[in-house]
């Protein structure tokens, strides 16, 4: 016997609704609103120290990053970048100015994009002279939370000779 049209319609809607609820319930297992971390509880984490955190084998150099200031909500961060001879010096110096231009590029690998430009200049002493092997990077601003890479490049003629990176989680 055929049911009245209204009853059949109601039945199909009831099953559609329960299918919907099933979808929602199963997917909710990983609902972001129920399972997430809060930005306030996450502190930026830079990579741990190593003897040669940034290695440039062709130039025979090592380099390290020391933060002056990590980015805050309102201001970009800045860091000092120090280069030394990989064979004869250590992270404590003496520092050595690379023969090529130094450039800093930020990269978010999981999403494949960068961020706003970073300015990298050789550090000036109080008397205006340049400090050998030490650079100052300013305007370091990561555009969103997540895992980022700070790439330090040695460049010539608009091309990259060598590059190395450190990882950081914002």
């Amino acid at each position, binding site marked *: 016997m055929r049911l009245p049209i209204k009853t059949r319609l109601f039945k199909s809607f009831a099953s559609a609704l329960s299918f*919907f609820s099933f979808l929602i319930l199963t997917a909710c297992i*990983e*609902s972001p609103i129920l399972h*997430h971390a809060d930005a306030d509880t996450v502190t930026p984490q830079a990579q741990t120290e190593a003897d040669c955190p940034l290695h440039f084998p062709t130039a025979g150099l090592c380099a390290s990053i020391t933060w002056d200031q990590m980015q805050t*909500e309102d201001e970009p961060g800045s860091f000092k970048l120090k280069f030394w001879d990989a064979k004869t010096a250590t992270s404590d110096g003496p520092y050595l100015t690379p023969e090529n231009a130094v450039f800093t590029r930020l990269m978010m690998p*999981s*999403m494949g994009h960068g961020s706003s*430009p970073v300015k990298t200049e050789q550090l000036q002493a109080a008397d205006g002279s340049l400090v050998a092997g030490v650079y100052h990077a300013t305007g370091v601003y990561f555009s969103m939370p997540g895992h980022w890479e700070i790439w330090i490049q040695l460049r010539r003629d608009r091309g990259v000779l060598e590059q190395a990176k450190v990882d950081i989680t914002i």
Partner: protein
Amino acid sequence: MFLLLVFSWVSATDANAAPCCSGSSAIPAMITGDDRAQISASFSHATVIGDAFEGGLPQFRSSDQSETTNFFRLDGARLISDRMQVGAGLSLLSRQFSTPSSHAGKSLPGDLILNFAYEALPEWEYSEWKPRGHVFIATTIPTGRSIYEANEPGLIDSTGKGFFRIAMGAILTKRWDLWDASFITEIHRSLPRTFPPTASDPDPLRVDAGFGGSFALGMGYSPGGGNFRFGIRLQPSFNQPKERTTLTGVTKSSRSQVIDTSLEASYLLSDQGGGTWTGFGNFNDQTLIGPAVSSTLNRTIALGIQHRWDR
């Protein structure tokens, strides 16, 4: 009652185009009812609630900073024959980033969407179960500024995907007395593109964003067959990893995935003189249902008005 149904994909489409890099549905507004033409104008406001990563828990943003995008959008479609239609959609984006002591904003055009649709399954006679079906091809023209060309802090000057994109899909709709249901699916391919050097990256960059897709399942109800319609919709979107090629090598991003949950309401304002005016409001949330992968998570409120000309 048929006039009630505003299938406005405005909010879901645009919410995804918002900050950064999430997958987007790229589904344009189409005529799915008995109309000759339609035009709609809408305003939507999207707030970034958090970010989902490749692994680990999503992270919600701190409450004293806000990243928002306002969209002003125009959509139009018209029949060019009994079963064929063309349409277009263009939006202007105004993006803002605020903290208690600073504010930055930027307004730029978004991407342009052009589409062509064919009514493959017409509803010539009443059937209890057989849906009405359209197939469509939509192209996205990258008139917005992409994240690969943006330079401002927070990249708030990125307002587009950056790629020519071709989407193909189908829409099935079914209406009963008080209820309606819809299913939309779409697959898209972004064409690889080379971006010129910028101040933040002095090397030319070629990006291949690959394939992506989405599907949406929606239901609607019109109490007493009156002028109101309420609806709910679920729409997961997926995107393949992006491949970046520079002079120093090739790198691959993560795949991305986000699920939109939408509540829709519309009201038939007037029905006279061979046309209708309908007001609509949508609430769209990407934080309710997961898992979300490698994407910002937005909440969007959209308000709009649509005019339709009867056939």
